[in-house]
């Protein structure tokens, strides 16, 4: 199935519900829905892109059928559709939900060349960070210690840990923009 939603569906919804800027809705919510689906199903699940596509089509269909009445925000409306589809998918894949395999929470950067390149450049940027920021990222994200444990190990406050993590992120953002 193609990732792009058929222009026919968009056209049909636009005709009936001209109040919605469908291109904007798709552009805004596809990344959010994709993130949620990958986080829930695991990026190793080959069907995740199909699931995202189904959700987006479902959103458009419901808008077309005027099922969105504005009782909640469009974000909450799409969130509900996404959650239901994820649950259905898991039920289909494993008959008993509680035995569903634990999804891999970390998305593999090697699915797409573009992702791989970004992961490589992020890694290089982290390597260039000052030792105190690098060490924070190492303990907190790589060694999976709690903020309290990191604070204790480095002899600083937990607030300071959060500040350093945020500042490291800020430095990386700057480095990645260059």
């Amino acid at each position, binding site marked *: 199935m193609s990732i792009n939603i058929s222009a026919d569906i968009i056209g049909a919804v636009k005709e009936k519900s001209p109040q919605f800027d469908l291109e904007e809705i798709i552009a805004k919510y596809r990344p959010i829905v994709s993130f949620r689906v990958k986080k829930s199903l695991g990026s190793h699940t080959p069907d995740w892109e199909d699931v995202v596509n189904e959700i987006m089509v479902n959103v458009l269909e419901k808008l077309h059928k005027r099922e969105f009445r504005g009782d909640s925000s469009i974000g909450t409306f799409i*969130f509900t559709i996404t959650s239901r589809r994820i649950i259905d998918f898991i039920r289909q894949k494993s008959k008993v939900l509680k035995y569903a395999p634990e999804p891999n*929470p*970390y998305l593999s950067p090697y699915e797409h060349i573009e992702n791989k390149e970004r992961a490589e450049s992020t890694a290089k940027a982290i390597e260039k960070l000052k030792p105190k920021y690098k*060490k924070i990222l190492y303990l907190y994200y790589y060694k*999976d210690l709690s903020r309290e444990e990191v604070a204790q190990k480095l002899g600083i406050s937990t607030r300071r840990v959060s500040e350093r993590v945020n500042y490291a992120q800020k430095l990386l953002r700057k480095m990645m923009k260059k």
Partner: protein
Amino acid sequence: MRKCKHEDLIDGYLLNKLSEEKKQEFEAHYFNCRVCFEKMAERDEMLTAIKYKGHTIFQDLETETEVERAPVLGQIWAFFTPKQWALAVATTAVLVVVALGVIPNLTTTSPQFFINDDLVRGSSIRLISPVIAVDTIPSQFRWESLGEDVEYKIELYNHELLWSATTSNHYITLPQEVKERMVTGEKYSWQVKAFSAEGTLIAVSSKVQFPVTK
């Protein structure tokens, strides 16, 4: 980028540390909050790189940690160079030889023994006479000499202290008036204590009993 109150949940969500309730709350939130979603996506990118490339990114820190975990013995070994270790071993060997030669000579002969349940540390005095039953009241008490400049204190007991005297000799003659107070058929005991010239107790004898038979 402005701050949102839900931002603090980003790390917990990405690291799977939120409760199910908080997780769902945050998921519903980021569908409506562009700020949180963008920050989360950015952090996730960093986290993904760390999780997949961490072993190379943090190679130096991993080595550092391994050194921290290295056994104490390894750290001690790393403290000196092999040349310094050789010197240290040789020095220790010399010290051991010297110690083994000198220490036995320094050891003082200070036996320990019990008197009236009290542990006494020091030399003992061997009593010579009387130490067994006698048929007459003894005139003289004798013990082994501990050398010069020693003051001895003798104590003679019946049921209680009968007489006490001091002398620098290793014998003493019983005064007549004490002798007259002693009777046959009774049991007596005696003990000698030795003092240095400075008055320090240096030796004590056992308390020896001698019956005076009829």
